[in-house]
């Protein structure tokens, strides 16, 4: 009987982890830009990087309920780490990526001790404060970061010693997409584990989770560190594919953007950040083409419309449509 009891929850989670056809279709569709819009591969790589950043926010916001207005801290930290390594003469992309990920993870782990103590409004203020702190530190340490001019002189070597980072973004998009996919697999595995389920319990009732045996703070520290690593990887990808790092990577605007993207797509759905990033980045590209000065006006309109009509984001709305369709049929 004991062995059956151990197996049962795992069996339940295993049924959740099977790939649905719509997921396979989504990932196949990410290859379409190579064929359909080869002139937009630079934008596509930016979307993939932003999607990874949003995915990392989804882990803490969508699953563990940690609202952050300073998530760019880890993005920017990863970005500067990767940029500096390349600038100091080690331009190999993959090792740079790993080192940047580790650096962002260490920063995430250290700050997670503060994060795990707070909830709600206090948490928003603290993450905002931490983000601003780091951005200002980077600004004043211009000897290291280049300050407002950005980090110059980042030169990347060929990926695997073969693929040059080209102007068309072919290598950049391939690289960013592959890294995004690997990180997505990790996130998906994590969410469909007992740990992932416990995180959702913490989101719903952090104070009482310990009553069923889950160490709330330890779980929060763990997921926050993992999310920081992923944000750092996203930042490193940006530094490596653009061969420059600016203060913008640490800015409040970037933290706010990624929050908007996640809410737009639908938090707590794993694909929300990905879909949100596609919609947001394409919309920004189009709107700024139409009206370069006022594109935030349209982004604002889009956001208000989504929150009013699709309170659970685009994916939440899509899921509701599917349910309605099924109940009619």
């Amino acid at each position, binding site marked *: 009987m004991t062995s059956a*009891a151990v197996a*049962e929850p795992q069996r*339940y989670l295993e049924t959740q982890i099977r790939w649905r056809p719509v997921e396979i279709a989504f990932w196949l569709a990410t290859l379409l830009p190579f064929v359909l819009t080869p002139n937009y591969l630079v934008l596509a790589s930016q979307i993939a990087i932003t999607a990874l950043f949003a995915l990392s926010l989804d882990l803490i916001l969508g699953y563990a309920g940690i609202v952050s207005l300073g998530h760019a801290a880890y993005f920017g930290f990863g970005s500067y780490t990767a940029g500096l390594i390349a600038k100091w003469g080690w331009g190999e992309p993959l090792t740079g990526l790993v080192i940047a990920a580790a650096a962002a993870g260490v920063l995430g782990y250290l700050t997670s001790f503060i994060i795990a103590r707070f909830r709600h409004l206090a948490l928003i203020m603290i993450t905002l404060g931490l983000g601003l702190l780091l951005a200002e530190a980077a600004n004043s340490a211009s000897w290291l970061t280049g300050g407002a001019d950005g980090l110059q002189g980042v030169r990347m070597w060929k990926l695997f010693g073969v693929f040059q980072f080209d102007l068309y973004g072919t290598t950049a998009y391939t690289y960013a997409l592959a890294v995004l996919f690997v990180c997505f697999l990790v996130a998906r595995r994590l969410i469909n584990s007992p740990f992932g389920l*416990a995180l*959702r*319990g913490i989101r*719903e009732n952090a104070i009482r989770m310990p009553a*069923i*045996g889950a*160490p709330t703070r330890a779980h929060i520290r763990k997921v926050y560190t993992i999310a920081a690593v992923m944000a750092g990887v996203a930042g490193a990808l940006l530094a490596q594919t653009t061969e420059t790092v600016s203060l913008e990577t640490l800015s409040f605007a970037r933290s706010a953007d990624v929050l908007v993207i996640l809410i737009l797509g639908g938090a707590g759905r794993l694909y929300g950040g990905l879909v949100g990033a596609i919609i947001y980045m394409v919309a920004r590209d189009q709107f700024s083409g139409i009206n370069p000065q006022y594109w935030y006006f349209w982004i604002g309109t889009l956001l208000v419309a989504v929150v009013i009509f699709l309170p659970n984001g685009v994916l939440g709305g899509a899921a509701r449509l599917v349910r309605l369709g099924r109940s009619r049929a």
Partner: protein
Amino acid sequence: MRACARSTWVARAMAEALLALNDVRAGYGDAIVLDGITLDVAAGGSLAVLGRNGVGKSTLLLTIMGFTRVSRGAVVWRGRDITRVAPHWRARTGLGWVAQEREIFPSLSVEENLVVGSRPGRWDLEAVYGLFPRLNERRASRGNHLSGGEQQMLAIARALMTNPTLLLLDEPLEGLAPIIVDELAAAIRRMTADEGTAFILVEQHTEVALSLTDDAIVLERGNIVHRARSRDLLKEQATLDHLIGLRLAEQPNAP
């Protein structure tokens, strides 16, 4: 239930009781809610906690789970002093708790609610669905789509999935239709008879509570004012009337 001399208390508690509280003073921040609580529960035993509203019944359970500030005394669990031990460790070593507010996870499905805290033992999905067939029917429903009675069943079932040695039940029958009260009372009876799970039951339904338990205590302003065998107390209408201020006959939903 024994009132022991303090000098021998800890030794005896460690030797005999599953859970023992010794002269516990507890509360929230600076506010003291419980003062001088001493009690113990044997393995497989059961205890009813009675009293008027606001006398500290829920706080007693919260203190056992580790959610209050204990400023004096000791909580001994399976022979170990756990007064300063974190709640999640208490849960992992066999303390289960069903909160008064039920506190199920609203956006998780019934099955997810059950799986989230599950630990190996005799209570698995099959066993709790056997105890509450209604939950099996609604296994895919979200927590917040359940009726009050179903939510209460889910809260108890979720606590059972952690395979507790001692289950703390905070007014599990409150606000439920009489037929559901009977159903839940039967489930609690079966749970203890078949599985030997010890429990502490805080309940306003005095008669049901006394019929389910071995021993009973009555709380008054944060202290224990009466101890008795449950079946004896059930016959002492005058004592109950005096202590709890409610005649059994006048109780709503009393079967």
